[in-house]
């Protein structure tokens, strides 16, 4: 057992930290929609260093680095509050590597690697959130095209993205997960409308209406009706980077800074709360490493990732709630940084799989509590 990173990995971390010095003014981990042009520039600068394709195979233009490198990269970017990892270079690119045609890889992998091309995740629908297998958005084949009609909602960042990574039904409604396919749909295509859903953190999610939007048959990724297996595999591509533990460390540090600046550091009740939170942050960090360790050893890490998501997001909320309680009514002004932290944290236990779904995974797969026996 060894809890340390290698010298080479630490050297890479130092390189990332030095790189991020030039992006200290970018505060887009929360509210990316307010900063997209700058975030895109950041991704392009990362792309120029090969950092958006760190873990891709060298045969596909990647650097072929172990997962640890991606973990370190997005952990530091999260700590710097610069951005969240983009969908394109993770789930999309790694799925294209596995399932894309040569033509699809040629078309999309290059601009994804350079940070030029960006995707929004088009899975959720008004009636299909936690239960994605009940998705209704329909893609009908007509000769060389699919005609797509339906509604997607709660898409992050779709207002700024180029393409939609769309889950659509190609089989019968009763076929559930076995009748779904994946498509790449331009967000500016005729018949595609993106509308804002303003959210409580001052940012927005989106709803996307597809009204007979047509895409060529070769916009489908993987086999028809084959999305479920592909999606499950793709989830594994992001398990080690989706919840960077240094983000919660930074949350706590921001709170400690506020406490110091406002002369509250000597209050024993405040110190006790901060100590408690520090322990919780340690837990979040070790849970993140457990996921990384599982994936590095070739295990799917499903239970580890579910536990990590619960711990990480609950710690986010605990830090944010403590921040509000320590700061008191001063934090009710929207221009108070602690306020943003708190409002954003509401979303963490909901987006990307609710805590209830995650705990269900742990109960069934780790504890063997499945079925009604």
């Amino acid at each position, binding site marked *: 057992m060894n809890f340390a990173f290698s010298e080479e990995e630490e050297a890479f971390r130092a390189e990332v930290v030095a790189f991020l010095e030039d992006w200290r003014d970018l505060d887009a981990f929360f509210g990316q929609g307010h900063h997209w042009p700058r975030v895109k520039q950041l991704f392009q600068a990362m792309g120029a260093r090969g950092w958006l394709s760190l873990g891709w195979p060298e045969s596909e233009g990647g650097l072929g680095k172990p997962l640890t490198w991606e973990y370190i990269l997005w952990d530091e970017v999260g700590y710097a509050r610069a951005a969240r990892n983009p969908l394109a270079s993770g789930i999309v690119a790694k799925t294209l590597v596995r399932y894309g045609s040569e033509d699809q890889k040629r078309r999309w992998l290059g601009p994804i690697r350079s940070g030029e091309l960006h995707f929004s995740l088009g899975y959720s629908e008004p009636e299909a959130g936690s*239960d994605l297998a009940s998705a209704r958005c329909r893609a009908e084949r007509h000769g060389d095209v699919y005609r797509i009609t339906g509604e997607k*909602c709660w898409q992050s960042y779709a207002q700024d993205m180029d393409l939609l990574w769309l889950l659509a039904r190609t089989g019968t409604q009763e076929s559930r997960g076995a009748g779904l396919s994946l498509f790449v749909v331009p967000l500016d295509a005729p018949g595609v409308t993106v509308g804002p859903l*303003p959210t*409580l953190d001052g940012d927005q999610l989106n709803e996307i209406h597809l009204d007979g939007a047509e895409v060529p048959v070769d916009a489908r990724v993987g086999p028809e009706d084959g999305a479920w297996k592909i999606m499950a595999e793709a989830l594994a591509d992001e398990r080690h980077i989706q919840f960077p533990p240094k983000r919660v460390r930074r949350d706590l540090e921001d709170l400690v800074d506020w406490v110091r600046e406002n002369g509250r550091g000597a209050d024993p009740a405040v110190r006790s709360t901060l100590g408690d939170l520090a322990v919780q942050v340690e837990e979040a960090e070790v849970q993140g490493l457990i996921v990384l360790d599982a994936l590095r050893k070739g295990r799917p890490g499903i239970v580890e990732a579910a536990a990590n998501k619960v711990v990480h997001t609950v710690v986010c909320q605990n830090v944010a709630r403590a921040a509000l309680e320590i700061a008191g*009514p001063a934090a*009710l*002004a*929207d221009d108070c940084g602690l306020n943003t932290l708190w409002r954003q944290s509401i979303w963490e236990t*909901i987006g990307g799989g609710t805590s209830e779904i995650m*705990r269900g995974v742990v109960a069934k797969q780790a504890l063997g509590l499945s079925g009604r026996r």
Partner: protein
Amino acid sequence: MDFELDDAQRAIVEAVDVLLERHAGPARAIELGAKGEYDGALHGALRESGFLELACGEGTGPLEAALLVECAARAGALCSVAASALVAPLVLGRPGDGPLALVESGSTAPIRYAAHAHAALVLDGDRARLVPLPDGSATPVASTFGYPMGRFEVGALSEGDDLGAGSGDRLRDAWRLALAVELAGSMAGALETTLTYVKERRQFGRAIGSFQGVQHRLARCHIQVQGSRWLALEAAHGGGATEASAAGAAYAAEAAGRVFAETHQFSGAMGFTREHDLHVWSMRLQALRLELDGAAGHERALAEARWA
């Protein structure tokens, strides 16, 4: 002892609900909230109908005023009914004239209704004072916490009528009583809208409210909302005595933390958007649970009153 409303109280609640049906509700709260406005029309309707006088009326008192405040909070009302109809009568012996803000002396934090209030009741140690507020006394503050907020400059509230010895404690007690009642009403609103949602929202072929894990947690919320209501009304029945008011406010502030978290969790992505009604009540819970030092402050007040 009787936990049912008597005929007169039931008639008051029914009449208040009819008025609120017409003048309040989540849609109106969202509309006014987007503009940072105060519901002057509702305030006027409550005054004209005499409801603001309940705390010092003939045959009615703080309990009836608390029932009014509870109904208003549950209806998402955006006016200072708690301060005007419950706090002012207990501190001044008469209802407040027009929109009224409650302020801790020297606070530069956002204050509910500050930018719209015609007067402020200011808590300053063991004294309270009533300070008239000309237009522009407070600066509006952008806030997502469900109330129009404003901020006073340091020293802006140093004048006004000193309300005499003991007025500080009277204001503190009445303020805590009002918080307990507003929290109870707002929690009920948040829970009701969530219950509607989990009964309608279907995933995995069934309503999400049919899952036992969801039921247990919402049942716990319901018990705490009811507990908050009874402690608040009991405190009002006793005229807002220190211990009872502090206990009601402390219990409700703790309960509101859970009710906020659970109602948002079970309202999912929908509840995180401004299109859904939940935030009308849920965000206010956070504002209310921070006033007067929150649960910790109320608990200290209770301990001091009982064992000092």
